[in-house]
């Protein structure tokens, strides 16, 4: 469903993603793990047409991501790491806008919105402006929105950041049922390794832009001789603390700006 071949992204001298290859099968729940600044978000941005790769091939749902962005956009849904809602619209209006942009049929739109808003327990608040929502509520709304058009592939970039245990549990059981019933493919990133361990079918670990390990949680544990994914992860990536995550593209922009000033 997702094919990544020799993917590389450079921002000037900085290589954010370095010759990465992996593939994700249909109906698979796939985790992309790595320390801050490892290249996870950059990889997702390229897969979701927001960024063009420097080199390499990307295929999603059998379509070339670079050559056929519009068709690719129809195939996936995404929950971004940072908020991407219109806070001056209500929860319902955000859903409606999204549904129409994705061409969800008129008859289907209202029942689907209701189903999803009920699922994330925001139906009672459907007519409230999003600016009055807490961080967790916004997150839930984004997740509901990402599922509205029944995407074939769902990208979740740190979807559970700032969510309480109940909501996380709800999210993962719903995502799990979607992969089973609708054969939806899910690629997610997270810093909660227990989440990856208990939900992901397979896990890829990237560090400094390079893919360093790929396999199921038990395979990763076995290959490193550890007994939890967290230990395996630390074994593979080392325990030094990385600098705060900077959006690689943003970093490049500021470098370029600084150069232009000189």
């Amino acid at each position, binding site marked *: 469903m997702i094919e990544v071949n020799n993917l590389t992204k450079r921002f000037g001298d900085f290589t954010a993603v370095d010759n990465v290859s992996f593939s994700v099968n249909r109906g698979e729940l796939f985790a992309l793990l790595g320390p801050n600044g490892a290249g996870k978000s950059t990889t997702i941005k390229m897969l979701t047409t*927001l960024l063009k790769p420097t080199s390499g091939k990307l295929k999603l749902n059998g379509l070339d991501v670079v050559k056929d962005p519009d068709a690719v956009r129809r195939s*996936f849904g995404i929950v*971004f790491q*940072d908020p*991407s*809602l*219109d806070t001056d619209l209500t929860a319902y*209006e955000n859903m409606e*806008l999204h549904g129409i942009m994705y061409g969800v049929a008129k008859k289907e739109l209202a029942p689907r919105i209701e189903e999803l808003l009920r699922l994330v327990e925001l139906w009672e608040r459907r007519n409230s402006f999003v600016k009055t929502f807490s961080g967790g509520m916004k997150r839930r709304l984004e997740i509901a929105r990402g599922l509205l058009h029944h995407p074939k592939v769902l990208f979740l970039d740190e979807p559970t950041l700032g969510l309480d245990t109940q909501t996380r549990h709800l999210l993962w059981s719903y995502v799990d049922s979607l992969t089973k019933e609708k054969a939806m493919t899910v690629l997610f990133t997270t810093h909660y390794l227990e989440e990856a361990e208990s939900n992901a079918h397979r896990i890829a670990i990237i560090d400094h832009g390079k893919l360093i390990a790929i396999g199921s949680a038990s395979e990763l544990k076995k290959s490193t001789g550890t007994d939890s994914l967290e230990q395996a992860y630390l074994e593979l990536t080392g325990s030094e603390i990385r600098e705060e995550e900077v959006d690689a593209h943003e970093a490049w922009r500021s470098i370029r700006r600084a150069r232009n000033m000189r």
Partner: protein
Amino acid sequence: MRTVYILWLRQIKRYFRSRSRIVGAIGQPLLFLLALGYGLGSVYKAAGRGNYLQFLVPGIMAQTVLFSSMFYGAMIIIDRQFGFLKETLVVPVSRFKIMIGGALGGATTAVIQGSLVFFISLAIGFRPHNWIMTLVALVFMCALALAITSFSSGIGSFVQDMQGFQAINQFLVFPLYFLSGALYPLNNVPTWLRIIAEINPISYTVDALRWAMLGTTKFGLRADILAMSITLVVLMTFGTIRFRHIRD
């Protein structure tokens, strides 16, 4: 069409929900009308040119539409800062439709603002020479609004922050406005000023509005319409091309 409509509707909803924006965007033209209209009225009359308020109102309406339309570009920068822009960039809708839906919405709100100024002007004594022709003025306002919202979406596509956007407003749009014939007649001005006014697209919209509302024109209606059409086509092309390369 549904996608263009919903993006248009988003702008309209946001406009009517922001009372401060409506009031704020009326404040500046009102100040111009009162301060200049009354302040310079007697000088204008003494110079034998008649009623300055009558002359001024079409200029101030153009001003309102111009700056309200420029504000639409700032909305794109706000969308980028709040993250909503990303959402619009991954949807399976062509960049052109996204651009045009938003620009039409921004243009609609700008024309509403311009019309509000018209009604305020009526309250302080302005009278159009022919009421039916004010509908033609509405068409001219729409043309200006769409041209400028297209332009400002193009600017919003590559200017990253509000400061950069303000700089374009200060160094490009304000001069174009002050050097058009909006505030003073272009007869008997120095040659350099006349030349600038003649290559300035804003001058032609102002002139067309005067034609519709006062029945007077400097460049002639044909030249006005030609200049406005060229401006609209050029700026829409600019906006479309820039928006295609937009980055979040």
